[in-house]
């Protein structure tokens, strides 16, 4: 651990959202010239912590000190003024403005009181060159850049604010491997310059490679802070989840691989999919792995009829299908359900009631002619709530009143009501609590046992290992590796994700 007085220290900080305790009495400190990892499961309080440090949230109680002096931030710019800069996951970029304008957004260079475009472009070029992104034109609009490039612009923007404390929240998750290396080098350089970096990542090998200090959070409390190398990976994981790994996944059945039910051949779309071959049998859970943005989401959306201009073939039970809308994809013949990535925009109609959301994909099952039958609706809603054990007060309440985990259950229940043969899951456990996660794992296995074919995309390696009969790892729009049974290991998935051999060093 670094010596001397900390640059930022939190003392007894709590943050409550209604009855939910996101952070409870947290003491935390970080030091200049250190790269400090913050580890913890989703919902452990990591993002609440950095939001408090960067002025997005006010703590319910407790104090924060910077260089020994108490500070309080009422808005993000207050934190920036003090030198705490956070790299959000592309949250702070304005899509319709140019790269240069975004980099100098809040504090542009001026001439005669007006924004100086030339100086602005020069600043952008310098910062982009510093992070090996000279190929990004400062005049491009953010909306025209790839996710990886956007993230790099976000990093350039943060560097332009001359941070004393730089917070990277999953900043490498969307990056290509080349950019990841650049960020690694940059972090080393920042450390040498005496800047404190707070690094939030779910990738243990990144943490191992980069950080000197680790802090573990669990259920809103700060469990422990220790220097790198003093604890084994298994110890760290135990600290994070508070119990042994692997125990919360249902047992996988031991049986021969079923015949393919959903068969994808040479599926290509734009630049995101470059010829995907994949088979899923009835009763199988097939995992999609790989780094974010390698075509997994596009693959699921393609199957669900969202993408235009697809090439290749998709067959279900030997019959070729080519749905051109979600309405067709869920209809007879294909019978596909997709639990989408963003439940708040694509999964739910937040202001509408729980009951309305539950029946939204299966009106035909609860209607007589053009009218919805109240009795059928009630019965369907009741059985869905029971089956998924959704904790609801009244099904007529707005779905937005539910917790994240229960909202996700509503999305899943809504699609199960259509009685699908093929279930596509896009990161269904993101941002929900451990208990609900376990219920979802159990449900997935039950559905598979009932004969559904399940294609499951997740960014969490542990889920791929724990839940899936097979795992297909995607890289750059292709499936580069297919793992089965005992071959599904973290090392194998990581190596395949970075498209290197198993014996290669994870970059």
């Amino acid at each position, binding site marked *: 651990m670094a010596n001397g007085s900390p640059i930022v220290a939190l003392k007894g900080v709590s943050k409550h959202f209604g009855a939910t305790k996101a952070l409870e009495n947290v003491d935390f400190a970080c030091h200049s010239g250190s790269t400090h990892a913050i580890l913890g499961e989703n919902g452990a309080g990591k993002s609440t912590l950095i939001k408090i440090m960067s002025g997005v949230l006010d703590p319910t109680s407790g104090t924060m000190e910077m260089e020994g002096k108490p500070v309080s931030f009422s808005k993000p710019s207050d934190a*920036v003024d003090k030198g705490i800069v956070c790299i959000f996951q592309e949250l*702070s970029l304005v899509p319709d*403005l140019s790269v240069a304008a975004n980099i100098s957004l809040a504090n*542009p260079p001026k001439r005669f009181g007006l924004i100086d475009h030339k100086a602005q472009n020069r600043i952008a070029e310098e910062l982009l060159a510093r992070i090996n992104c000279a190929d990004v034109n400062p005049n491009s609009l953010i909306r025209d850049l790839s996710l990886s490039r956007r993230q790099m612009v976000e990093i350039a923007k943060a560097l332009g604010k001359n941070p004393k404390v730089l917070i990277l929240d999953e900043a490498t998750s969307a990056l290509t491997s080349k950019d990841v290396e650049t960020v690694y080098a940059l972090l080393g350089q920042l450390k040498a310059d005496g800047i404190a970096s707070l690094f939030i990542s779910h990738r243990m090998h990144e943490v191992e490679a980069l950080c000197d200090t680790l802090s573990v959070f669990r259920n809103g409390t700060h469990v422990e802070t220790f220097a790198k190398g003093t604890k084994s990976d298994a110890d760290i994981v135990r600290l994070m989840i508070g119990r042994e790994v692997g125990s919360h996944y249902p047992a996988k059945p031991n049986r021969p691989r079923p015949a393919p039910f959903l068969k994808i051949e040479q599926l290509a779309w734009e630049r995101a999919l470059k010829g995907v071959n994949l088979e899923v049998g009835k009763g199988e859970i097939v995992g999609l792995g790989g780094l974010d943005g390698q075509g997994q989401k596009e693959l699921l959306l393609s199957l669900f009829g*969202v993408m235009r201009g697809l090439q290749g073939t998709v067959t279900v039970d030997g019959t070729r299908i080519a749905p051109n*809308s979600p309405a067709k994809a869920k209809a007879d013949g294909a019978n596909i359900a997709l639990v989408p990535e963003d439940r708040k925009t694509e999964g739910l109609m937040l202001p509408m009631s729980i009951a309305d959301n539950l029946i939204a994909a299966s009106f035909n099952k609860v209607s007589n002619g053009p009218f919805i039958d109240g009795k059928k609706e009630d019965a369907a809603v009741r059985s869905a709530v029971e089956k998924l054990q959704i904790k609801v007060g009244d099904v007529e309440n707005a779905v937005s009143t539910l917790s994240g985990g229960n909202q996700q259950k509503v999305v899943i229940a809504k699609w199960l009501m259509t009685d699908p043969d093929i279930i596509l899951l896009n990161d269904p456990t993101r941002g929900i609590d451990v208990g609900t996660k376990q219920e979802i794992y159990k449900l997935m296995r039950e559905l598979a046992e009932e004969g559904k074919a399940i294609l499951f995309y997740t960014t969490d390696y542990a889920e791929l290992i724990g839940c899936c009969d097979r795992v297909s790892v995607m890289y750059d729009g292709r499936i580069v590796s297919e793992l089965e049974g005992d071959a599904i290991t973290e090392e194998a998935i990581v190596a395949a994700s970075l498209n290197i051999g198993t014996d290669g060093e994870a970059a």
Partner: protein
Amino acid sequence: MIERFKYSLRQNRGFYGALLGLIVLYLLYNSLHPRGFSTAVLIQNANEAVVLAFVAVAQTIPVLIGGLDLSVGAVMTLASCIASVLVTGSPAEMTLGIILSVLAGTMFGLLNGLVVVYGRIQPIIATLATGAIAIGLALFVRPQPGGDIDGDLNWAITNAVFDFAETYGFADDGNAAWLQPIAWIPVPLIILTAVMLLVWVPYRRSVTGRTAYAIGSAEGAAYMSGLPIARAKIMAFTLAGFFAGCAGLYLAIQTSSGNADVVQAGEYTLKSIAAVVIGGTSLLGGVGTAVGSIFGAFIIRIIEFFFRINIGSFSIDPLLQTLFQGVVLLVAVSLGSLRLTRIKNRLDVFR
């Protein structure tokens, strides 16, 4: 330089499309007009288009932050009624009247901004209400149509530069050699250009202006970047009031009168929205420019001009003009949605 233009072309298809459409339509109109390509036609057209152009500019700024201002036509009416009372008498009195008319519009815009920001009311409904208030005030100022605006001012401002110089007796009553290259330009176009250069261009390059774009594009990102959101919203509506005030002032001078006409106010508001869309500004906010809206306003007016000329022996029954205008407008606006046919991810349609 060329590369910058290439980027600008790709990023502002709507704007350049509107410019191209304007040029083509206006050349076509003039070649069909019996007295086409003459200063007289240009002056007449400019006078009829410039008020809508100002109102369209006014509408653009609230639209850029992702709102709609339904009061621009009403604020224009209020300013024109005030001008019809005040812009008269000695030059000093007239100057004061001009300033007060535009100031009234600006203040009303400021009120809109305060109501939207601090009342936390959606712009469309807030301005629906304040628009009615503006008409009410206009009726109070001028219960009967009329006014006594200075005749010299009316003549000087609604004609070419030559007439302006002649009226106020400078540049040898407009005959000086140096004036001749610009003597034919209609004064309304010069006023519009000057106001845009003095107000819109600096605004576009200020932090407040850029914040307006950022709010329309991604308000969350604007907040996270520490931009002055409340100030930018208030400023957007205030500027809308200013430009609507300019429109009202010009309308009053042009017609030498004021008229608290509810129907006219509503028509200007609705046409301003159409002009903004034709000019390449997204109703969702974040994309577009006020200059494009001026082109949009001109295009709307030119389409109307077409109905006045006989093409060969063919002319359109005046009773059907409104119907045809609606159809043409629909076609013009739908050109802007052509890009949707190229979208490869159908979800992007909703983004």
